[in-house]
C-alpha cells in the first residue's frame, strides 16, 4: 500500500524534491529566521537569550569599527567591479579575435590561479607584499626607485594588495564567462557592420558590448555578493582577523569577530542582516537599472 503510494506518478516528484525541502528548512530557512530573531536579542552560545529590541541595530549605527568594516567592504567591492569586469571583457574579446594565436593555452593558464585555495593564495600574496626590501613587490617597486613599503600596515596599500589578489585569482574566470557569452553572438552582425565600414572600436561598442549584457549582469551580481562578503582573503593576508587599525576588517570579518570570537551572537546576527540588506539593495538597484526586470515582464 505504502509502496504503491510512493511509486505513484503524483507522489514521485515530491519524493525527488524532498531532500531539498529538508535541507532548505533546516539549514537555510531556520538559520535565516533565527538570524532575524537573534538580531533583536542579547545572546551567548549556551545561554538563555534576552530580548532587547532594536538595541543591536542602534548600537551598530554608531559603532565606528563597524563603519570602517562597511567602508572597507564597499571599497573592495567597487574595486573588484572596476577591475574585474572591463578588463576580463576586453581580454575575452581579444582572445576571441581571429588574429589571436594560442587561444586554449592562454585560456587555461589564466584560469590556474582560480584553482588555488584562499589559504594558499593568501599566503603567497602575504609574502609577496612582505615589508622586507627583498620581497617581491618591494624589489619590483625598487626598480623605480621607490623606498620599501610596509604594505600591510598602510590602509591604501593593503586594499591594493587585496584587490591585486582578487584580480590574480578571478580575471581568468571572468574572462571565461565573457568567452562563453561571446560564443552566443552571431557572426552575421560583425559581417554586416564590416560591410557598412564600421571600425573595430565601433563594432565593440555597438555590437559586442550590448550583446554581452547578460554576461555583464551575471558577473556584476556575483561580484557584488562576493565583494561584500569577502573575509578569508583578508584573514589570510593579515594572518588573522586583527589588522592594524582595522585596515583589513570587512563586514563578515566583523560578524566573525563579534559572533565567534566574542560570542555576541545577537550583535553578530544584526551585522549579518545589515549585510544582507546592503547586498540586496545594491543588486536589486543594479538589476533594475540594467533593465533585467523589464525584460521579464514582456
Amino acid at each position, binding site marked *: 500500500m505504502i509502496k504503491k503510494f510512493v*511509486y505513484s506518478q*503524483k507522489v*514521485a*516528484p515530491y*519524493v*525527488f*524534491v524532498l531532500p*531539498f525541502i529538508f535541507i*532548505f528548512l533546516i539549514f*537555510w530557512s*531556520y*538559520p*535565516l529566521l533565527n538570524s532575524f530573531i537573534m538580531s533583536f536579542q542579547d545572546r551567548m552560545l*549556551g545561554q538563555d537569550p534576552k530580548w532587547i529590541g532594536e538595541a543591536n541595530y542602534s548600537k551598530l549605527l554608531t559603532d565606528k569599527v563597524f563603519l570602517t568594516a562597511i567602508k572597507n567592504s564597499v571599497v573592495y567591492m567597487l574595486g573588484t567591479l572596476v577591475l574585474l569586469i572591463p578588463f576580463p571583457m576586453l*581580454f575575452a574579446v*581579444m582572445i576571441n*579575435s581571429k*588574429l589571436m*594565436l594560442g587561444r586554449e593555452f592562454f*585560456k587555461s593558464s*589564466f*584560469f*590556474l590561479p582560480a*584553482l*588555488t*585555495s584562499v*589559504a*594558499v*593564495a593568501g*599566503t*603567497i600574496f*602575504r*609574502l*609577496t607584499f612582505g615589508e*622586507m626590501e*627583498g*620581497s*617581491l613587490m618591494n624589489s619590483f617597486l625598487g626598480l623605480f626607485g621607490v623606498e620599501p613599503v610596509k604594505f600591510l600596515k598602510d590602509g591604501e596599500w593593503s586594499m591594493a594588495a587585496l584587490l591585486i589578489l582578487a584580480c590574480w585569482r578571478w*580575471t*581568468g574566470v571572468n574572462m571565461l*564567462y565573457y568567452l*562563453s557569452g561571446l560564443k552566443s553572438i552571431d557572426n552575421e552582425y560583425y559581417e554586416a557592420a564590416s560591410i557598412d565600414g564600421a571600425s573595430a572600436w565601433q563594432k565593440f561598442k555597438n555590437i559586442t558590448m550590448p550583446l554581452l549584457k*547578460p554576461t555583464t549582469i*551575471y558577473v556584476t551580481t556575483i561580484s557584488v555578493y562576493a565583494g561584500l*562578503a569577502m*573575509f*578569508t582573503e583578508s*584573514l*589570510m593576508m593579515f*594572518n588573522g582577523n586583527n589588522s592594524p587599525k582595522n585596515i583589513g576588517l570587512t563586514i563578515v570579518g566583523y*560578524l*566573525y569577530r563579534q559572533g*565567534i570570537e566574542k560570542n555576541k*551572537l545577537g550583535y*553578530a546576527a544584526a551585522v*549579518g*542582516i545589515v*549585510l544582507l540588506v546592503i*547586498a*540586496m539593495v545594491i543588486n536589486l538597484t543594479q538589476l533594475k537599472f540594467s533593465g533585467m526586470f523589464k525584460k521579464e515582464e514582456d
Partner: protein
Amino acid sequence: MGGSQSRNNLISRIVMICFFIILFVIIMIPFYAVTLSSFKPGESLIRYGLNLSLDFNIMSFDNFIYLFTGQHDYFTWFWNSMFVTIAQVVLTLFVSAFVAYGFAAYDFKGKNFLFICVLLIMMVPFEILLVPLYSLINDLHLVNSYSAIILPGIANAGTIFFFRQYLRSIPKEIIQSGRVDGANEYAIYFRLIMPIMKPSFAAMAILNGMNSWNNLLWPFMVLGDQSKFTLPIGLKTLLTPYGNNYDLLIVGSFFSIIPIFILFIAFQKYFIDGMTAGAVKG
C-alpha cells in the same frame, strides 16, 4: 589597400600576442615564486621575503624531505581533505541530481515556489548565516564532525540549478518509453536518466570538488580538533602570531596545489563547463 590591411593585421596580431605573453608572465610569477621558495630554507623567506632570486647555494630538497619524512600533521590533513572532498562530492551530486530531476521531469503543485527557493539560496551570501548555522550545529552536537561540513550543502542550490538546466535538454520520450515498459518512476531515473547525465556529473564533480578541497572558513569554524583539520585549515595554523612554520607552509602549499592541477590538466573541458555553468542563461 589590401597590402596595408594585412600589414595592419600582422601588427595587431604581434601586439596582441606580446600583450598576452606579458599577462601570462605576470600571472605565473606567484606560482614560480612559490615553487622556488619551496626549495629554499624558511629562514631565508623570513629574512628576504618571497622573491624570484635563483640562488642555488641555499636551494635544496630539504623541505620536501621534511614534508615526506618529518614529524608533522601535514598528511593527516591531506587525507582528511581527500576524505571530506570525496564524501562531499559524492553525496552532494547524488542528492542534488536527484532533486534536479524532480524539478526537470515533472509538473507538480508548489514546483514554482520551491524553485524560487533554490534561486533564493543562490541569491543570499552564505556568510550571513555563519552565526545561526554555527549555533544550530552546536545544538545538534555536530561540532567537530565532518557532517557539519557536508550536510548543510548536500542539496546544493547551484548544483541543482545546473542539473536542472541540463536535464531540460533530455527528451521526455525517454521517460515515457520507460513508463510504457513498466518501469517505476525511480527506476526510470536511476536506470535511464542517470547514465545520460554523465557529462554534467563530471562538470559538477569538478566544481564541487574544487570548492570543497579549497574550503576554509566554515570547516575552520566547525572543526576544533587538530587531528580532524583539513588541508587549508592546517596550512592556516602554520601561520601564528607567535611564529610561522615557513619550512612546511611553503612546500605544503606547493604540494596542495598539485592534485588540483593534475585534475585540471586531465579534465580541462569539464572544469570550464562547471565554472561557466551559472553564466549560461536559463
